[in-house]
């Protein structure tokens, strides 16, 4: 039985598909969801969502959100979500630089948590963007 997945953000419906496996970055750790998963409701950390359908993997970068799992369907309410091919690599790199610099500068009035979150989001996008370049690389979790 395939798993129905909907990924939506406030601005648009990003993706709706039937897949075999969903990998998602939960706040409590990486989640792998197969059909007949027990009902689950969790927050998502910035990171990468992988959808496996047949032998093909689809990658999306999300910057946090919510995940609802029912036995036959998965709903991702993402703050933002981009497919690998939509990400502008140069801009993602720039954003990572900026976030890194800000974090390193430790200047007054800097919100440490916010800067860290920005850096994490930028890293997630870069990570997913690079998937597009070498699709043959197996999924590794780090």
């Amino acid at each position: 039985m395939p798993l129905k997945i909907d990924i939506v953000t406030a601005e648009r419906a990003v993706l709706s598909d039937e897949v075999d496996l969903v990998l998602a970055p939960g706040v409590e750790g990486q989640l792998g969801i197969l059909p007949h998963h027990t009902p689950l409701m969790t927050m998502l950390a910035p990171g990468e969502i992988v959808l496996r359908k047949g032998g093909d993997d689809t990658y999306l970068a999300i910057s946090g959100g919510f995940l609802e799992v029912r036995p036959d369907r998965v709903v991702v309410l993402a703050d933002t979500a981009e497919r690998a091919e939509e990400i502008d690599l140069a801009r993602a790199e720039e954003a990572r630089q900026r976030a890194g610099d800000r974090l390193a500068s430790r200047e007054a009035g800097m919100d440490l948590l916010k800067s860290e979150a920005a850096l994490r989001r930028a890293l997630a996008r870069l990570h997913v963007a690079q998937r597009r370049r070498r699709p043959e690389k197996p999924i590794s979790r780090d």
Partner: protein
Amino acid sequence: MPNTRLIKRRIRSVQSIGKVTKAMEMVAASRMKRAQERALAARPYDEKIRQVIANLSAAIPPSQEGAIHPLLEVRPVQRVQMLLITTDRGLCGALNSNIIRVASNFIMEQEVPVSAVAVGRKGRDFCKRCGQQVLAEFTDMGDRPGLLDIAPIAKVVTEDYASGKTDRVYLIYPQFVSTVTQNPVVRQLLPVEPTEFPAGQNVEYIFEPNASYVLGQLLPRFVEMQVYRAILETIASEQSARMVAMRNATDSAKDLFKELTLVFNKARQEAITNELLDMIGTKIALE
């Protein structure tokens, strides 16, 4: 005899007004299309978040709801807040006056004090004109606000509610029905009442990290989403109303142009006839 030069001047001004309204109509038409698409694009998220909240609250016993999150807490109504969403600019037909009429009826119907948060210049001006207390105002949202631009609005409202400064919050905005119809609506924004949502299945969920934390994160998002949708609909309504208003104006300009041209031609003919009469008269007198 009407002065031909004056008529000519009027024709020219009517024509140039017609050109301006035609241009505005076309600008509004293209913006309307995009605004409508955006308003529609926001729907799936809204539907999904409703389902999720319905499912969540079904999983939590109703007696605990108030304790679980302040935004769910239903209190006796002693103060009401309205979030009035209007447009920044005019020239969009009766859109703003309709919404403001609904708002003023709303204020008068309330038996308790009403405070206002205004989004859009027209609504703010209305509140100021009639001495309504305005807690916060947001203008210049632009044509395509993102969820991030909306967040401060939702924050003001939710904070006031959570801290007990108000016991009920209503959203008043022009709902976008179609290009020719926009309905002013009054909708309750807070407290969130998940029982109003389509019934969720009663499923036993595992929550990570835990139920009240997830709900606590979801509810503010939900409120933001409601405000976001209302603002998107307002923008779609604004552009539609402006397009229709400007089309009417262009049509009127065309009619007026025709009428004036007729008057002008009559005047011209009359002038020629009179000149001819003068010449013939003079000739007869000379003979």
